[in-house]
């Protein structure tokens, strides 16, 4: 069961159009989210992590377009092509929230300050289920209790400003989990939170994954989080997945120069002062003027003139794929 695919993205290209210029935010991205597994997408800011999430949810801004590729969601009734649904049509609204739910990055702004927390949890239950009003209230209280919020009967009538950051994020998870979605997309769910609160949130997400077989796509920039939570990892750079595979593949045998540089640039707790961290030279290129071939080539220490030509994806093993011409020489 655990290897069943819940959502599959193939060669997705999402472009943004502003000021007569085109930003190829996603330039051919493919991955699968499997039931009961966590896929972590790592990368620096601006690499297209969040655009991937909004493409799946059909929450892209107006000036952007899915150019090509497919997003297929596999529900009981069969395959649904999310990319072909109208952005605010009935069908996508039925899926969004109920089947595919999302936790946003910033719990301070994602909740509406003028409605009570209870109302905001009830909203999705009201829309997606046919429970009675009383059942919805009872269910909302249960959800808050499951998330570990003390005194939920009282807290349900309070407003977001009366909650702390960690509690707000738990409310967000309660909303996302209210209809027991098959796929959960978490866009940097703990970046704004302290580490002790982060640990609580991760514990919760792990529980959901094992109990309800939810497929989780976790977007993060923290390699520590990846090591902790992921079953599979995809490393993104400038709108492409440069390396993907299981956690063991990517963290123990990093093959792409970018992944290796990324792992070398962070201090790891427990390695003490002896560790040498090595910064990646330069900064990410202008998104409107991307390098022709491998987008990492200008910063890559192994780059050759060949790297400026079009790159193809290759498989190292059945689970481990990479976009790099020279990985064999590097490893």
């Amino acid at each position: 069961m655990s290897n069943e695919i819940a959502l599959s993205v193939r060669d997705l290209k999402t472009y943004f159009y502003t000021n007569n210029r085109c930003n190829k935010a996603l330039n051919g991205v493919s991955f699968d989210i499997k039931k009961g597994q966590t896929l972590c997408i790592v990368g620096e800011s601006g690499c297209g992590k969040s655009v991937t999430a909004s493409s799946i949810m059909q929450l892209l801004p107006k000036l952007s377009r899915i150019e090509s590729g497919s997003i297929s969601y596999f529900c009981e009734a069969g395959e649904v092509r999310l990319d072909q649904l109208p952005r605010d049509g009935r069908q996508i609204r039925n899926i969004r929230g109920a089947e595919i739910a999302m936790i946003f990055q910033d719990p301070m702004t994602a909740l509406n300050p003028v409605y009570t927390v209870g109302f905001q949890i009830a909203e999705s239950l009201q829309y997606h289920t046919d429970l009675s009003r009383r059942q919805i209230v009872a269910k909302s209280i249960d959800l808050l209790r499951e998330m570990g919020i003390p005194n939920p009967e009282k807290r349900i009538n309070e407003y977001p400003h009366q909650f702390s950051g960690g509690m707000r994020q738990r409310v967000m998870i309660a909303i996302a989990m209210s209809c027991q979605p098959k796929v959960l997309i978490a866009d940097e769910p703990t970046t704004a939170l302290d580490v002790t609160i982060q640990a609580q949130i991760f514990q919760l997400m792990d529980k959901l994954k094992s109990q309800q077989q939810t497929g989780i796509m976790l977007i993060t920039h923290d390699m520590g989080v990846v090591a902790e939570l992921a079953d599979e990892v995809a490393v993104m750079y400038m709108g492409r997945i440069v390396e993907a595979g299981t956690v063991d593949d990517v963290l123990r045998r990093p093959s792409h120069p970018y992944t290796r540089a990324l792992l070398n640039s962070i201090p790891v707790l427990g390695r003490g002062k002896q560790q040498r961290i090595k910064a990646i030279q330069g900064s990410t290129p202008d998104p409107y003027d991307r390098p022709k071939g491998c987008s990492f080539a200008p910063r890559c220490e192994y780059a050759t003139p060949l790297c400026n030509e079009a790159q193809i994806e290759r498989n190292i093993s059945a689970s481990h794929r990479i976009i790099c011409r020279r990985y064999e020489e590097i490893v």
Partner: protein
Amino acid sequence: MNAEKSVLIEIKKLQLYFPVREGIFKKIVAHVKAVDGVDLQIYRGEVLGLVGESGCGKTTLGKAILQLIKPSAGAVEYHQQSQVVNLCQLNSQQMIKHRKNLQIVFQDPHSSLNPAFTIFGSLEDPLKLYGVKSKAERRKRVGDLLEAVNLRREYMDRYPHEFSGGQRQRIGIARALLVDPEFIVCDEAVSALDVSIQAQVLELLLDLRQQRNLTYLFITHDLSVTEYICDRIAVMYLGKIVELADAEDLYANTLHPYTQALLSAIPVADLDIKTQRIVLEGDVPSPIYPPSGCAFHPRCPKAIAKCAVEMPVLQQQGSGGTDHQVACHLIAVN
């Protein structure tokens, strides 16, 4: 660190309370105890890390040392070669003289530079204040410093929006270095940056410390960075320091339950290092009404009856002659 450590900054029983006002007469009903009785020595040439969760008073302590917020009580003694000055007793005019030696790098590189000024416009002010009269000289000094932080000299005529986050943070560091300080407070100086850029800035900070003999107070919430860069680490919880030790000692021999939980909560980017995670219940309590006794006792997995009644004090734990202080009843009992 070598044996003869000389104190640069000594903080004595520093308190900083923000009044909470209510009602039409704005009567003071309570105080937010942001910094509540901190004793701390910062030695010359060291990097002292100050870690803790948000709202524990790290930034406030950093600003209070530099008198950017006036402390309510206590003393900050600045040991110069010949004399000792209590910064808390100076007025702002007198303080300007010392600001030359005590500088700060702010957290957010996007809001700490004035968008309407060029980089030179922002950076020349401290030089003017400290008597560099000729513009040519100021341009030279600014240009030299930009080069010292690995930026190009020509960048001084650009505006902040033309720079990336990492570049802006380096401009912030250059600004702090302009007047040749000996002590710099780095307030979350790398937290807003991407990991690859973060490493560049950390390297720069360490290099500059070597070249210019600087002392840093490195405020951060990221314990992996602290371990890498700091000589000593102070852990803060709710306005108090709960543990203070040499960096290696703190990680090898963690004593306070809060520090243990904090360390175990950090996700480690290494599949071979697996820690037993201690997940704390609940949130940090309100600093307006801190819990009785030890402020950590409601969340502490090891709390005993005494913890709720009596406040533990920071005590020396003499294991092998190292400087390891901790405020916990359990440690004192053992």
